[in-house]
């Protein structure tokens, strides 16, 4: 099975701007791409998953650097990013929209681009589609149970969440750091994630995620001509530092392992659902 989908090349990178790195999850690639886009005019509006009340994720159209920075960081709960796509074009009047989403959301926006039944004059306004690596997501109340019941931190006090080293990490605003083993979070996963065969956002222009690169760096797949042109613009502007993916630890081998494990496990779930007569996306 092809673990990554088609791509032109992969690299390891991080944002050169320290302010971005401080606020973002790993290498700050999405924030760096968005900020570069807004500052250079490649983009005039971007979709972000903003932090709502009590650390819930809320999709938002951002048009300034401050808005991008305040939304930086992974939320691990559903943020219906496509739901504000038409607002970006209609209400904000954006012509060059940047989009970021999980692999399923990237599939969704690709469907919209190919079959735009209800998206009048939106397809030609999408300038960049970024995807983030994703194993599964949690419904908000699932995340809340993990954070409040298992980690003993109130949602209103959460500063950051993270997944790494086999654990789910919660950082509170007051400096507490709590963890729970990743396998103990499985019962709270969104069940609909288990039909998804895509770990690395295979249909994005540019996909990124922490896995495969050292701490503070991100792995990036450049997949399309559009993604390559955008990446080159970022490289030329010096907004990202780059390392050869073959020179970094743990490298693409780990990404491959995780991508394949998602495909294996969810492939079995799909076969099971089919066997008992449940529908699958076709």
């Amino acid at each position: 099975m092809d673990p990554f989908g088609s791509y032109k090349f992969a690299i390891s990178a991080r944002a050169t701007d320290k302010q971005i790195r401080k606020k973002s999850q790993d290498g700050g690639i999405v924030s760096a791409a968005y900020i570069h886009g807004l500052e250079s005019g490649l983009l005039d509006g971007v979709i972000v998953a903003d932090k709502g009340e009590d650390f819930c994720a809320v999709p938002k159209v951002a048009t300034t650097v401050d808005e991008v920075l305040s939304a930086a960081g992974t939320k691990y709960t559903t943020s219906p990013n496509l739901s504000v796509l038409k607002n970006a074009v209609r209400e904000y009047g954006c012509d060059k929209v940047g989009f970021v989403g999980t692999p399923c959301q990237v599939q969704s926006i690709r469907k919209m681009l190919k079959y735009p039944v209800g998206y009048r004059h939106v397809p030609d306004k999408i300038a960049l589609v970024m995807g983030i690596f994703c194993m599964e997501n949690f419904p908000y109340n699932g995340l809340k149970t993990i954070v409040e019941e298992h980690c003993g931190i109130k949602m209103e006090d959460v500063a950051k969440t993270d997944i790494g080293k086999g654990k789910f990490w919660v950082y509170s605003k007051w400096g507490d750091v709590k963890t729970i083993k990743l396998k103990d979070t499985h019962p709270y996963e969104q069940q609909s994630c288990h039909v998804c065969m895509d770990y690395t956002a295979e249909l994005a222009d540019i996909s990124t995620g922490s896995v495969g690169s050292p701490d503070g760096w991100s792995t990036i797949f450049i997949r399309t001509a559009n993604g390559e042109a955008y990446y080159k613009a970022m490289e030329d502007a010096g907004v990202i530092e780059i390392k050869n993916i073959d020179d970094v630890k743990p490298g693409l081998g780990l990404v491959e392992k995780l991508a394949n494990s998602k495909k294996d496990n969810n492939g079995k779930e799909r076969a099971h659902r089919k066997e008992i007569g449940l529908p699958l996306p076709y």
Partner: protein
Amino acid sequence: MVKVAHVQLSSCCGCLVSLTDTYEKLLDVLGAIDLVYSQTLADVREVPDDVDIILLEGSVCINDHHALETALACRKKAKILVALGACAASGNITRFSRGGQMSKPVHDAFAPLTEVVKCDLAIPGCPPSPEIIVAVITAALEGDMDYLEPFAELAKYGSEACGCDLINKVINKSLCMGCGACAAACPTRAVTMECGRPAIDKEICIKCGTCSVQCPRIRFPELIEKIE
């Protein structure tokens, strides 16, 4: 040149407005076809007998024999009959009609074209976007059946469509992952996202089916995966 006709039954002209909303692409479309009938765009009184593609907009008033005859005639005259827009595809807001409207108070029963005659393709949407109308016409001209397959399916099975599809076919089947495509696509804003799932305001839903057509968890044609 491929002969195309645009015919209207019970509809608001919105689909035609959407077709003309393709701006400069409209010229490409019109340049690529021979528009043999369109009440608004061409000065022709009768739909000719031998038409390659008929785009039929609107639902069929089954109290009106003229509407039924037009639907049947279009079926006979067209090589490819396209139910254009949600009224023709799935009934849309005409599903709610209960008559009493001046000057035809007895007209109280409307069915989508797909339920009255066999249609080859159905394009939902109220109205369908200009982009999708152009894409379907272009694919039909090129004989790109892979692209058209979902529209052929809707012509066969899509006459019951509304926000309930999201509940019955996606949420109830544990398929919804909360992308929000449905909410953005809904022309009446009847779909909002609550706790990462669509919530449908049935007072506002007009049964256009756009939400479920746009959902990647119901239908995800393989050709979408071809990116460059």
